């Protein structure tokens, strides 16, 4: 470790230290003002009652006691967890399949890549708008298609937003449109696996399926882990779709944690409690990431990945 006490540095090192700190000063200020200070303040606020209009009043652990008895919090957490446990695995599978398909030597690959990546660049709110139209029970084309184009029984579509479970599934489906991003990363990973491995396997008599599970998947495992953690992090913050399409309904079936947090803070002006909620979210995110890392140690293989 390099000594960082100024008196032990050579004049050149001191000069460079000054220069270095000067250039990264925007980052230092940014992190202190926009990250560290808010986190500390968030912790402090979580012990207070604060409506934003009057100064906060200290109430000790009351927010946390309320947190653990809060039925809505538990429901929103459950919804978010259910959403993550569906959307993340499905998303990874879809992304890997897409990457495999894009990896074949089809000449017009660039067209597919563009078409599949495009939706993940577009704003969630616009996608939410169009989904409202797509699943409208009276004239939505998705309802029409899923009812078998009128072939199976009544052609009148079901309202997928009326049932909490199907509403959740709708939001899971929307999330898959963003798979293009992950697919690109998987594609890069696929390309970095040396062909010689596959050839050796083929010579030894391995089938395509076998070499997929024995070569491709293990070598992709670091990328799978990375995508899983990123997806879980994003999933914990799901907000826009719920706000635009379902407003948390029906029966709080799509009341995601972020939506509940937003509502508590800005609709009900309970900023202190909302801080407690956000800290809980932070801790949960950390715990999930740690769990994933520990579990992954047994499965993730870092050799041979360039």
């Amino acid at each position, binding site marked *: 470790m390099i000594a960082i006490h100024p008196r032990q540095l050579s004049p050149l090192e001191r000069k460079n*230290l000054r220069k270095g700190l000067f250039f990264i000063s925007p980052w230092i200020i940014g*992190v202190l003002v926009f990250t560290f200070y808010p986190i500390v303040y968030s912790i402090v606020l979580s012990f207070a009652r604060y409506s934003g209009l009057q100064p906060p009043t200290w109430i000790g652990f009351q927010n946390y006691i309320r947190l653990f008895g809060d039925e809505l919090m538990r429901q929103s957490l459950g919804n978010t967890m259910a959403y993550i446990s569906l959307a993340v695995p499905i998303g990874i599978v879809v992304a890997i399949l897409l990457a495999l398909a894009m990896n074949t030597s*089809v000449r017009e690959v660039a067209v597919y890549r563009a078409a599949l990546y495009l939706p993940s660049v577009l704003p969630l709110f616009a996608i939410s708008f169009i989904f409202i139209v797509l699943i409208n029970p009276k004239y939505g*084309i998705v309802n029409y298609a899923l009812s078998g184009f009128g072939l199976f029984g009544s052609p009148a579509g079901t309202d997928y937003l009326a049932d909490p479970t199907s509403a959740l599934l709708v939001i899971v489906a929307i999330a898959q449109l963003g798979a293009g991003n992950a697919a690109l990363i998987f594609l890069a990973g696929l390309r970095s696996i040396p062909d010689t491995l596959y050839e050796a396997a083929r010579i030894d008599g391995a089938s395509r399926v076998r070499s997929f599970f024995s070569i491709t998947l293990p070598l992709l495992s670091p990328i799978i882990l990375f995508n899983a953690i990123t997806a879980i992090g994003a999933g914990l913050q799901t907000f826009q779709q719920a706000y635009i399409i379902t407003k948390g309904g029906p029966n709080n079936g799509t009341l995601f944690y972020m939506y509940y947090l937003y509502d508590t803070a800005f609709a009900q002006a309970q900023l202190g409690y909302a801080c407690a909620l956000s800290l809980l979210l932070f801790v949960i995110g950390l715990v999930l990431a740690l769990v994933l890392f520990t579990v992954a140690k047994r499965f993730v293989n870092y050799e041979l990945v360039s």
Partner: protein
Amino acid sequence: MSSVVSTTSTINKPPVDQQTVARQRQRRAMTKLGESVVARVILIATCVLFLVPFYWMFVTALKPDAELSIFPPELWPRAVQWGNFLAAVNTFPFWTYFGNTLVITAGVIIGSIISNLFVAYGFACIRWPGRDLVFYIVLATVFIPLPVALIPLFDMFAYLHWTNTFLPLIVPAFFSSSFYVFMLRQFLLQIPSDLLDAARIDGASELQILWRIIFPLARPALAIVAILSGIAAWNDFTGPLIYLQDDTLRTLSVGLETFRTVNSQDVQVNLLMAASLLVIVPTVILFLFCQRFFVRGAILGSIK
């Protein structure tokens, strides 16, 4: 050829004659053809699935009001109404929202390029004690989720009376973002330090090096930062939702949504779709012309 090239295989293979080799080669070629057919089918089917929402958006935008609730839904309007785009722009305060979004996006892009380049230069091109240790902290902060800071930040901006202005949305961009710093640093590390040292020996100051040498060389990476940060700002919903209360200040994202819920009687779906399309179109065009930047950005960001 009368024999197969020897391999490290432990299976004892009998000597293979030409006919079998030819047959095996043909079978492999057929499998390859089969593979590419299957791949094509999967790709085309997925593309159709992914693009259906946007096709539907386009089609709905062109339908006159009367055709909106036809059941079963029709794949193409009977009477194509291009005028809907004009009507949409007139029904929503579209140009207000558009102008606001433009200002915010421009501010964010400028701030991102300047601050991230500065900071990445500090981490990549100057050797100073403790540099790599501090960079680990940068890495760690990439993973900190925003919600934790959301409420205190709002409180802080409220205290500064910055709520209901663009400031909370633009100013943070001038203080760099750990993710872009990471990405730019990866890029800048590839520039040979001999080049920079030579300039230093010739008496150039760090700022001169940054402006004359690094900035021109870093243009591709800066383009990625500009595009990614610009699109993030253009599409941002939660930020404007929290900080912009006046309808005259709202951006396209929040503006359309609030207008839709407030005036749900007057706003027809086709107008909403037309307006949404107008919002999306710049991003789509940018994407089609600058695909490689997106791709490179996605990949650069994932290398750890």
